[in-house]
């Protein structure tokens, strides 16, 4: 295999691993930029993966054919938003500790989804195998060396993720809505004085994070596992949180960080192709992404800069 195709394939599987992380990290940015910590991304992904599995299954049963996965995606977005509303209700309306209410989401998601799956599928702890997305090459563009194989022969969800990075950046930095969202996360008192509805902005931020994390969870069901079970997500949400912080709460930065995590997962499959890697215990190869992350963080200059009102419920009487 020549180097160019190898690099192309490496890039391609990097994107497969990264897509869900990109969605979820983008979602995290919207929530945290509005000032609401979202440690519940893991749970929201579980909700999404679950809804995608169940939704696609029933759409398939209803004879929707190749449109079925898209029904799954829509279900995932919807259920993700519903899940995030619990978080918003507790942390914005009732001013609960945001970390705690995020953990609540993780617990409820892990419990509710499996509970419902067992109810629907006669006690089975996983959904049946479902129809999933297939890679779709874009004509012409896919003939570009490396990038063609890397970017333009991907799952539809991957294209969507790439587009959403640009959209998120535009929305956050170039629109009045984005400015308001960020101002609510930086200095809610000032934003309130200027007539921005702090609670409403935070609700919107959290709901967008629910939609995107649901989409992220759906991506894993619909491109990687083909079914939903208890270990479909297993920690991806936490990695997405790391990607968000690593990317300094910026869509483009988070995209880069998600690509980095995806790359280090992809490379661990490729390293095993080489003879010299046989002498390294596989556990050390598995560790690569996580050790690399810590090393990069240690060597990166500058501290992570979280939105300054992150984690504090807004109380107008303390303005």
């Amino acid at each position: 295999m020549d180097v160019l195709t190898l690099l192309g394939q490496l890039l391609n599987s990097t994107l497969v691993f990264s897509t869900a992380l990109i969605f979820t990290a983008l979602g995290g940015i919207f929530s945290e930029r509005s000032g609401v910590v979202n440690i519940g991304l893991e749970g929201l992904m579980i909700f999404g993966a679950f809804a995608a599995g169940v939704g696609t299954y029933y759409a398939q049963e209803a004879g929707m054919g190749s449109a079925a996965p898209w029904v799954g995606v829509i279900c995932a977005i919807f259920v993700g938003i519903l899940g995030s509303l619990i978080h918003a209700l507790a942390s914005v309306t009732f001013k609960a500790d945001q970390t705690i209410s995020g953990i609540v989401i993780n617990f409820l998601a892990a419990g509710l989804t499996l509970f419902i799956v067992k109810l629907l599928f006669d006690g089975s702890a996983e959904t049946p195998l479902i129809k999933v997305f297939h890679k779709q090459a874009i004509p012409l563009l896919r003939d570009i060396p490396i990038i063609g194989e890397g970017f333009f022969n991907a799952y539809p969800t991957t294209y969507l993720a790439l587009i959403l990075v640009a959209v998120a950046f535009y929305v956050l930095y170039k629109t009045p809505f984005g400015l308001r969202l960020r101002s609510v996360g930086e200095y809610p008192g000032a934003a309130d004085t200027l007539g921005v509805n702090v609670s409403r902005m935070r609700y919107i931020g959290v709901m967008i994070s629910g939609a995107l994390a649901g989409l992220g969870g759906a991506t894993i069901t619909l491109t990687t596992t083909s079914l939903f079970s208890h270990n479909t997500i297993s920690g991806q949400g936490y990695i997405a949180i790391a990607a968000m912080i690593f990317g300094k709460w910026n869509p483009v930065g988070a995209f880069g960080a998600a690509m980095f995590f995806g790359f280090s997962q992809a490379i661990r499959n490729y390293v095993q192709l080489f003879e010299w890697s046989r002498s390294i215990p596989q556990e050390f190869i598995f560790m690569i992404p996580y050790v690399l992350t810590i090393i990069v963080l240690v060597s990166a200059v500058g501290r992570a800069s979280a939105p300054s009102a992150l984690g504090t419920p807004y109380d107008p009487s303390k303005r």
Partner: protein
Amino acid sequence: MNKLRKIFTLDSLVVPLVAIVLGLIVGALVMLLGNYNPIEAYSALIKRVVGSPYHVGETIRQVTPLIFTGLAVAFAFRSGMFNIGADGQVLIGMTTATAVSLSLDGVHALVSVPLAVIAGGLAGGCWAAIAGFLKAKRGINEVITTIMLNWVALYFSNYIIRHFFLLKGQNRSEDIQASASMTFLSSIFDNARVHWGTVIALIAAAFFYIYLWKTKQGYEMRAVGFNQHAAEYAGMNVGRNVIKAMFISGVFAGLAGTFEVLGVFHFQSVFAASPGYGFDGIAVALLGMNHPIGVVFAAILYGGLTYGSAGMSFAAGVPPELIKIIIGSIIFFIAAQGIVRFILKPFYLKRKKEKVL
């Protein structure tokens, strides 16, 4: 002033209790929606937990690591940090205890067990201190580092077990002879796996309280937790406190793992995925409102529900996942105290009037 304090102490007791009741009601509603009988399920749960001496002993076994991990997370919280990495610290403590006891095979248990316990605790502490160190020196968010270290700990532990202590043909370590079981209690608890870890866990809870609220070092740690900048301005060394707090937090978690291998399993498995001790610890810490006494009670609640869930699913056919929904709801109601206060309001006012009379 006295009156104020009374209301406060009452509140910190009443709110969790109401939250527990509300959580159980949510669980019952979910069961009704799923066409299960909640009364049957809950009585099966209680029967499983207190039905026989063996089950009581096993519930204590289930509760013990939860006390440790709950204390670990709560201690870090009190010092202003979020230790998501208790999971990894548990694993490292486990692996170290396994390695030490298997290496000291043949040495008298009175020597090897304490050595393994000390080594396991210290190893967990050092593992957590890495995250503390990186936060203190480089300002790296401990949430990321502890998440990453969880995975590193998982694979590292598997490596150690697989390459040095593997039982041939099995996916676990050789059997550990050194044991922290309390054999003299076996007859009382009908051979349930009770062990010294429970005693140590309660001592750890006492240490937690005395250290944080009765010593100068603990005062500094809480000050750093409340307001880093104020603490620094007052001349406290924030970095050192951060590292120390993470270390102590990690020691608690490491001990959880240590006693799981020395007292319960007497071998260590090769884990395919994180065993989840640390995440349970987060829930326990939150349920216990980051207070050592609260953590002990929360661990009993959490451990009891988890252990009882098997009975519930056996007798009433309810999937054990229901327990997670109940625990999630309880934490939700504790966190969103506004809801509880709202529900309590009418009762509350009445009771106050009675007191006046």
